[in-house]
Every structure is written in structure tokens, then in C-alpha cells.
């Protein structure tokens, strides 16, 4: 068991002060920035404060830009500009071919979902998308204009159809089909010495009954078009029990997931607590010298500085509120 702060940082390539190479060891400037931003977000746990606000607004700015860049490159440049340019090149090549030869062979076509179409048609169809895009952007200038409704209507129709056709099969038909299985699993065996209870016939029967009854009861809970008599009411109550157990297990997994995210952030901060990133000894230091160097490392130093500054800020805020209370 080696407490983290006393571990060596030997083995890793020494980080540069600043490096744009993603393959290199994370740079020192980047390490300080990561630690500052991480601790700035964590400072929200104390209360909303300027550090958090700065981090929050940076997040929105950088995040919005990233998402826009990715969607622009892959959703507009590729399918519109590159596609039309390539189709146009094929069209020009075909026109040259047609101008010279009698027979119409060797014409280049555009692959559209596995079916070959004429380049001219491909360009025309893609220009409709371009027109719809421009119509959508009209919304920036006029909220009440009719123009954005056309592309939105097309999108709604396309998404509704694709969801309907895809999900009906996987989430309805196959789900029902997989419910209709034998109550006793073919691989179940009599419960004897050496056989796990979970592999036995009795367990298989019991658990599949629990599943089937549970499923029917939950489905019956969602029947709102029939008067609840004693049978339906009873089944609905049992359905609620199954639902509560379901939601409870979802809650359990949610806790698992959220804590894993926190552990990852702590681990990331710990990775910058190595002497290589500290203001102190930059060489790999071990033992108590390493511990001292870690105290001057980004997470510790930034953390301490932030605590001091937040304390000063909070005191200022309290004094201001007290003064406002007195004068009011």
C-alpha cells in the first residue's frame, strides 16, 4: 500500500511547459488550467461564486463552439460542399464524354444509398437541402416567418418515420416475442449437490413466473381505459411494487455512475499532484521531498489559493449584506 503522495513519478516522460502535441505527456500549463477549472467547478459546492461563474461561462462558450465546429465540418461541409463539388466534377466529366463519343458508356454516377443516380439529379436534390437550410436560418431574423416551418416540417416527418419504423421492431415486436419463452429454461437441472440454486428447475420456474406476472401487472397498471375492479386493482398494486423495485435499482445504478465520475475527477487531479508539475522540484522526487513538492503542485496550490480567496470574498459579501440590512 503506497499512499499516493509518496509515490514516485518516475517512468513517465517529463512534461513540457507548453505543448500542442496530443501524443506528448500533458503539458504543465495545461495541468494548471485543468486543476483551476476543476476546482472552480467544485467550488460551487460551497456556494455560487465568481470562480464557478467563470468556469460555467467558459464551459458554455467552449462547448457551444466545439459542437458547432463538429456539426459544421461533418454535417455541412461534407454532405453539401464536398458532395456537390464531387458530383459537379462527375457531371463535367460526363458532359465531356457525351460531347465526344456516340455511345453512352463510362458515364460516372453518384452513389446514393447504394443506388446510382445521375450527377445532375444528385446536385438538384442536394440543393433542396441547401435551400431548406437557408430557410431555417431565416428564423434568426424573423421569429414569425413561414420560411423555417418548411424545413422543420420535413425534419419532423423524417424523424417520426425513422423512429416509428426502427423502434416498433426492436422495442415492441421483439420484446413481446422474447417474453413468450418456456417457464422452465432448457438448461435448468434438478437441484442436487454441486448444482447452484440459480441453475435449478425450481429457481427457473419461480423466477420466470415472477418475471411474467410482474410484466403483466405493470402493463395492467397502465390500462386507464377500463374501470378498475378488484382484479385489475390488485394487479395494478402488484405492478406498482414491481415498478418501485425497478426504480430503486435504477437509483442504485445512478449512484454508482455519479460516484464513478467523482472518483475520475479526483484521480485526474491526483495525476497533476506529481512533482513533475509542481512549482518546487521538477525532477522526479521520492519520499518526503516528493510530498513537499506535491504540496506545491497545481491541485494543492490552486485549491489553497481558492479557499483563501473564497473566504475573503465570502466575508466581503457578508459585510455588504450586513451594511445593506442596517441601512434598510
Amino acid at each position, binding site marked *: 500500500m503506497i499512499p499516493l503522495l509518496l509515490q514516485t513519478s518516475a517512468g513517465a516522460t517529463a512534461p513540457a511547459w507548453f505543448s500542442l502535441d*496530443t501524443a506528448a505527456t500533458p503539458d504543465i500549463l495545461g495541468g494548471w488550467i485543468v486543476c483551476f477549472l476543476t476546482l472552480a467547478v467544485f467550488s460551487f459546492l460551497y456556494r455560487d461564486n465568481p470562480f464557478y461563474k467563470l468556469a460555467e461561462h467558459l464551459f458554455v462558450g467552449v462547448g457551444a463552439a466545439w459542437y458547432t465546429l463538429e456539426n459544421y465540418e461533418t454535417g455541412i461541409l461534407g454532405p453539401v460542399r464536398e458532395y456537390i463539388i464531387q458530383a459537379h466534377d462527375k457531371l463535367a466529366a460526363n458532359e465531356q464524354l457525351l460531347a465526344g463519343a456516340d455511345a453512352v458508356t463510362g458515364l460516372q454516377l453518384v452513389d446514393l444509398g447504394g443506388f446510382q443516380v445521375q450527377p445532375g439529379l444528385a446536385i438538384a436534390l442536394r440543393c433542396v437541402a441547401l435551400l431548406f437550410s437557408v430557410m431555417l436560418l431565416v428564423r434568426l431574423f424573423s421569429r414569425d416567418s413561414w420560411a423555417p416551418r418548411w424545413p422543420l416540417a420535413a425534419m419532423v416527418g423524417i424523424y417520426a418515420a425513422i423512429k416509428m419504423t426502427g423502434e416498433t421492431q426492436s422495442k415492441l415486436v421483439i420484446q413481446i416475442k422474447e417474453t413468450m419463452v418456456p417457464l422452465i429454461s432448457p438448461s435448468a437441472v434438478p437441484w442436487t449437490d454441486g448444482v447452484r440454486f440459480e441453475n435449478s428447475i425450481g429457481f427457473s420456474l419461480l423466477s420466470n413466473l415472477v418475471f411474467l406476472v410482474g410484466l403483466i401487472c405493470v402493463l395492467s397498471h397502465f390500462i386507464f381505459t377500463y374501470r378498475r375492479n378488484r382484479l385489475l386493482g390488485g394487479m395494478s398494486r402488484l405492478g406498482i411494487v414491481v415498478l418501485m423495485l425497478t426504480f*430503486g435499482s435504477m437509483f442504485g445504478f445512478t449512484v454508482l455512475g455519479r460516484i464513478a465520475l467523482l472518483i475520475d475527477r479526483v484521480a485526474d487531479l491526483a495525476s497533476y499532484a506529481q512533482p513533475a508539475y509542481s512549482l518546487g522540484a521538477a525532477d522526479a522526487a521520492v519520499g518526503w521531498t516528493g510530498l513537499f513538492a506535491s504540496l506545491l503542485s497545481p491541485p494543492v496550490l490552486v485549491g489553497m489559493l481558492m479557499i483563501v480567496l473564497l473566504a475573503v470574498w465570502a466575508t466581503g459579501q457578508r459585510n455588504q449584506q450586513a451594511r445593506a440590512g442596517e441601512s434598510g
Partner: protein
Amino acid sequence: MKREIPIFLTVLCGLLITISFFAPTSNPTAIPPVPASPWQAVNAELLEWAKILFAVAFILGIANLFRINLKQIATRHEDWAYKAVLLVSMTAFLVIGLAEIHVKDLPPSVLRLLVPARTITFVDGSSVEGYLVERTQVTATYRTGAGLEPRAFLLTEIANDTEPTFKLWIYNKFFVPLQSTMFSLLAFYVASAAFRAFRARSIEATLLLVAGCIVMLGQVPIGDELTGGYASRAQAFLMTYVTKAGLRAIIIGATLGGLATGLRIVLGIERSYLSE
């Protein structure tokens, strides 16, 4: 006509996609081979339209973000300085990112200013700075020289090629820690809620808490150590039979509702998306 044309477009696009779903698709390995069908082209083109409009919606979103925040800065709204940080960071990242995307098209002076150059080292020991345009299995094309003209080199001539990128540096040093830390805050709120809000006030609430505790114990080794191995077995039974039953019922119910709504939209009966 204001309502009719959008409804017509919804119905047309929806029906075309639905019909394409049922149309046969090409299968050259079948006996006899199934040729490609025009419905494949119809389906693909409509999906491409949706993809393009999806991307354009982001441009709309970011333009809106600019407008709203500029207005708040101009009117000296509370926290206007932070809005300025938002806009500056967003603009700077957009400019840097667009420059890296348009390496092929930018004039040399702008390219040198905004995009870090690669250092291409050749097998003969010489090196040159340039910007990658395209790489195939045989050649790599870079913009090099004083005028940053595109030049192709054989891959066999190239020993090494660095890949500096400002865009990814900003992504790794700003976006990644910010987004991951924002979500990790939830761990603290889960702990707080566990103490202050999760009450076993009724049988249903008790069942929910018990199921949660079984899962929390069953997922970690310490659970089995404390319960003699029963935590993971109880959790496995809970997930495989009880939770599966509940979720399957929810999935079936939700899909029936989704199917009904989808049909209503595709047939032009549902018009709430026109938001008049």
C-alpha cells in the same frame, strides 16, 4: 397555405421514409441477386437532408447565443462580464477551429497566424514545416513553402510528422475538465439527497430504498464481504427478473404510445409541432 405546405411536407417525407423501410434493398450475394432499388436513394437523400438540417440547427443555436449575450452585455446585465468571457471564448475557439478545418482554403498569412504548422521530417534527415491537406495509403499532401502551395510526398520518404493542434488542446484542457467536473457534482447531491430526502414514508418508498441498497451493495465487492455472498446474488435476481419485467413493460407501453404519435404525425393528424 401557411399550414398546408408544412403538413404536406411532413406527410410526404414521413411516408417516403416509411415506404422505403419496406422496399427491398440490394443484395448482390443473393440468388438471384437483388438489384438496388430507387427507394434506397429516396431514403438516403431524405436522411441526408435531416442530417444537414440537424447540423444547421447548431449554427442557428450559436447565432442565437451570440445575439442574446451581446444584448446582455450591451445593457450591462448582471454578470455581463461573464457573458463577455463566454462570447470571447466561443469566438476564439470558433476561429481557431474553423481555421484548422479550412487548412486547404485559407490564404497563407491567415493560416500561419491561426494554425500551428506540422514539422515533417524526412528519411534523409531534412525537415520542413507544413499543413496536412490529405493523406492516402501512398502519398501525403502538405501545404509547404513560402506560398504554402500543396505538394505531395511519398509516405516512404517521410520519417515522422508531428501533429500539433490548438483545437484539441483547448478541447482537452478546457472542455473535458469542465464538462466532466460539472457532471461529477451530482455525486455530492446524491449523497445529500440520500440523507435529507430519501424517506421510507410508505411501503412503496421502502421498496424503492431497499432495491437501491441491494443494487449498491451487489455492485461492489464489499457488499458480498458483508453479506456472505448474498448481495450480488440478490442483485442479479432483482435485475434479471424484476427490473427486466418493469422495464420491458415500460418499453412496450412507451413504444405503443410512440407508434401512435408517429403515425399521427406521418399521416398529418398531429400538428402541434407547427406551434401556432
